[in-house]
């Protein structure tokens, strides 16, 4: 690698006039706008609002569980609360925030494109999300779904049928939005890369989005199929999954998990990509093992498609199938381990700046490791037979999806906020936010491992009084977690309105998205973007100018 960033050819130097400058007015964010940056921010703000709603639902769930008896809300409402909580968090927060928000904002900037491959389709995909969310959350006014986010028949066919239908419609809308998004991301990464940017020079976020988009395209249609068949059973009285008419409820589980296990990777792969971007910048070191991380994303994507029945080890799953899925699931630990060790090696020996983005990235790494290790444990069939559908699983999934995805999303917000808004967030508030989140999260979810092992099943409104104390601890943790969003909210809103102005490259990063103004102009770059051959080329070599001495504008004005 000679130099990280090639000087621009003479012909493409920025034009002197102001014609490519300019920014959108504020109200553009409420319109059908085809600018990928606007759509990315629309996704992020919308999904964060849904995250707050989903969190409020979780707080009520934990308030009910603070005591062993079912005494705060009715049992019916309790089931509706956890059903909508899970659906909101998965389909309206993590999936659209990871893929929709960050991929939309970052992909064109990272591959040097002016916009996504299909801008109108992109806007259509976004504008499916708000109605789907309003539909789902509004169902509380009529009748909310109450059969769990898995909606297993026959229960989903007899319990809260109106709510179930609303749930199906909402998830179908969100699934369609997700597919449209994935078409866009895949095409943009493959076809819209700037001339000279090869696959192996792409930022790792692009690799992880490529892997996640493939998963969306392969698996989401199967969920759509399952839900359409379920709606036929529900509305028209067919018997695809209804055993009363000779249907097979276990087939629904296969179809559901054929999407919903890959969905876990759809939720975590974009975050993997973001972590691979954030760590090198704030540790001032190249990413360790670029190719291993890139290809492990693809491996995870492929293996993610053949492990779904590990959610069904105690279901109507024959023993040979249980053994196959056990081994396949165990193997996923290998590419995931490669990533974790590579990230740790990236940190080791660096010049680590412990700012909010880095703290959340390290928090992600720590918490995700716990979720990953308990994931290997539950992959083992004899052990999973004991803990399946217990609080051990609740703990495991929150360590992966909250400790993993949500910590990573926060890291991403702190890292790219200056680029998105042109303003800096407050670091002190960020650190307070991180500390409260880390403590609240572990207080809430760590004791749940014990609850599950000892015999507390999930999705219950009442439980054995012997678990009362530990459940109270979990509930206190969840309240702390709810409070922890307040400093973040204040910080983000205040910074967006009145925070100190951010430079184009406040972190002195080498990624292409940092080689433009903050926020970027409508066309992303004034003139053509520079070619970044190695966006991880940190490191002081003797006789070379330190990259930290570079300003964004230097990249096309003076040779490095």
């Amino acid at each position, binding site marked *: 690698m000679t130099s990280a960033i090639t000087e621009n050819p003479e012909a493409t130097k920025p034009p002197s006039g102001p014609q490519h400058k300019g920014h959108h007015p504020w109200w553009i964010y409420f319109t059908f706008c085809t600018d990928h940056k606007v759509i990315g921010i629309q996704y992020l703000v919308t999904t964060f609002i849904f995250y707050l709603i989903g969190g409020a639902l979780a707080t009520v769930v934990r308030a009910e569980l603070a005591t062993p008896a*079912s005494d705060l809300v009715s*049992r*019916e409402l309790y*089931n509706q609360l956890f059903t909508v909580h899970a659906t909101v968090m998965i389909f309206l927060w993590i999936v659209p925030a990871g893929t929709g928000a960050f991929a939309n904002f970052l992909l064109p900037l990272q591959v040097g494109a002016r916009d996504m491959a299909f801008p109108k389709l992109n806007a259509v995909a976004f504008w499916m999300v708000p109605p789907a969310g309003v539909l789902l959350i509004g169902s509380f006014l009529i009748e909310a779904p109450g059969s769990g986010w898995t909606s*297993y028949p*026959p*229960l989903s066919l*007899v*319990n809260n049928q109106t709510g179930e239908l609303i749930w199906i419609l909402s998830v179908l809308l969100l699934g369609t939005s997700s597919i449209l998004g994935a078409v866009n991301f895949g095409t943009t990464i493959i076809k819209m890369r700037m001339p000279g940017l090869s696959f192996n020079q792409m930022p790792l976020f692009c690799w992880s989005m490529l892997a996640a988009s493939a998963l969306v395209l392969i698996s989401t249609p199967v969920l759509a199929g399952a839900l359409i068949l379920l709606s036929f059973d529900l509305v028209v009285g067919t018997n695809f999954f209804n*055993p*009363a008419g000779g249907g*097979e409820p*276990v087939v629904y589980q296969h179809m559901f998990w054929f999407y919903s296990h890959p969905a876990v990777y759809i939720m975590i792969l974009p975050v993997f990509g973001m972590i691979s971007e954030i760590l090198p910048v704030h*540790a*001032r*070191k190249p990413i*360790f093992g*670029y190719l*291993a991380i890139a290809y492990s994303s693809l491996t995870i994507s492929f293996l993610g498609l053949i492990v779904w029945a590990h959610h069904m080890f*105690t*279901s*109507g799953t024959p*023993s040979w199938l*249980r*053994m196959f899925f*056990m*081994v396949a699931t*165990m193997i996923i*630990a*290998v590419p995931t*381990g*490669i990533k*974790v*060790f590579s990230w*740790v*090696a990236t940190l080791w*020996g660096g*010049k*680590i700046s412990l700012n909010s983005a880095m703290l959340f990235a390290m928090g992600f790494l*720590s918490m995700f*490791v716990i979720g990953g290790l*308990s994931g*290997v*444990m539950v992959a*083992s*069939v*004899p*052990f999973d*037979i*004991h803990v399946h*559908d217990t609080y051990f699983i609740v703990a495991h999934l929150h360590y992966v999806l909250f400790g993993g995805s949500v910590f990573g999303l926060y890291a991403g917000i702190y890292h790219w906020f200056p680029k998105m808004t042109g303003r800096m967030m407050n670091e002190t508030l960020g650190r307070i936010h991180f500390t409260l989140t880390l403590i609240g999260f572990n207080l809430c979810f760590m004791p749940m*491992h014990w609850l599950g092992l*000892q*015999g507390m*099943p999930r999705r*219950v409104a*009442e439980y*054995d009084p012997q678990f009362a104390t530990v459940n109270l601890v979990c509930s206190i943790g969840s309240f702390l977690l709810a409070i922890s969003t307040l400093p973040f909210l204040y910080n983000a809103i205040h910074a967006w309105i009145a925070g100190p102005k951010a430079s184009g490259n406040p972190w002195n990063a080498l990624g292409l998205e940092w080689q433009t103004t903050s926020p970027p102009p409508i066309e992303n770059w004034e003139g053509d973007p520079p070619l970044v051959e190695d966006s991880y080329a940190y490191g*002081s*070599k003797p006789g070379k100018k330190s990259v930290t001495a570079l300003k964004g504008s230097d990249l096309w004005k003076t040779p490095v």
Partner: protein
Amino acid sequence: MDIPVTILTLLAGIAITLVSLWFGLNNNLLPFAATSTAADVDTLFNVMLTISIGLFLLVQGLIVISAIKFRRQPGDESDGPPIHGNIPLEILWTAIPAVLVMGISVYSFQIYNQMGGLDPMNHGGHKMEPQAQVAMASDSFEGPMLLADGTVNPEYKKYAAGVGAAPGADAPDVTVNVMGLQYAWIFNYPEGFVSGELHVPVNKDVQLDMVGQDVLHAFWVPEFRLKQDVIPGKNTQLRFTPTEAGTYPIVCAELCGPYHGAMRSQVIVHDEADYDTWMQTQIAAANVEGEAIAMTPPNLSSAPLDPIIQAMDMDIRAEELAQLHPSAHGQMDHSHMQHDPAMVMN
């Protein structure tokens, strides 16, 4: 004092190993183990926990040390060393997890085989009531468990789900038909009575043949480390040998409606003598009840329980017949009688 890094690393490695081993062996995270195979599952858990704690301490330790040791000093604008990778190191941390998960897979497979997980629905020559079986299973897509002539359907086994006979096991000593419904468990004993609680003798091979009536449920006894979904229109099975007398909770572990959390019962593991006493009491009570039910006009009986009551009624007559003519039981269809403790006493 300047201690060499190699020594420190060695000490850290020893410390991590000792802490993991100590925690893995003394975690007390699992409840009481009350069956012959529960302890095997616990050992598997302890092994996985030991490895997990070790890996967690390693990764977490490196992160925390990095955060302290490699923290950027104020005013330091320089970069870290330009290390892009290290192939031998990357091969090492690919190979070690691969070997570990393969080892855990093989070990899990072995435990699962010992539990009887690889052989559900293998009845080892034991026959249950053909009529009841055909009625329960004939609607599921894989066809009946037993063919019309009472022989085992060879096609059935490959779709069978649950935990079955351990390798080399004979026919179960006790078989109970389990029905899961909103929001109760009904245990239908072949001796001719139903119970809301499961009573089993200690140190006997017990088989549960389970089916759901309305929605999915899951039969879980934490102290047995056993769980299996109960599915309408499809039989599933659990088989175990309780080794410790006592009372343990039965928990429904699959969301089955608003009262899912209240769907609980208990399993009482009796000493041999206690179990026989309990069995005799139940049979005597069922005889009284059975006569009462037989005299009840059919239109007064509650609809959902009809099949159970009918089955009960039928069995009771067989029971009475057997007690009247002990020598005739060998010719009867109800070959489960040969495992009936009541018959042993006769």
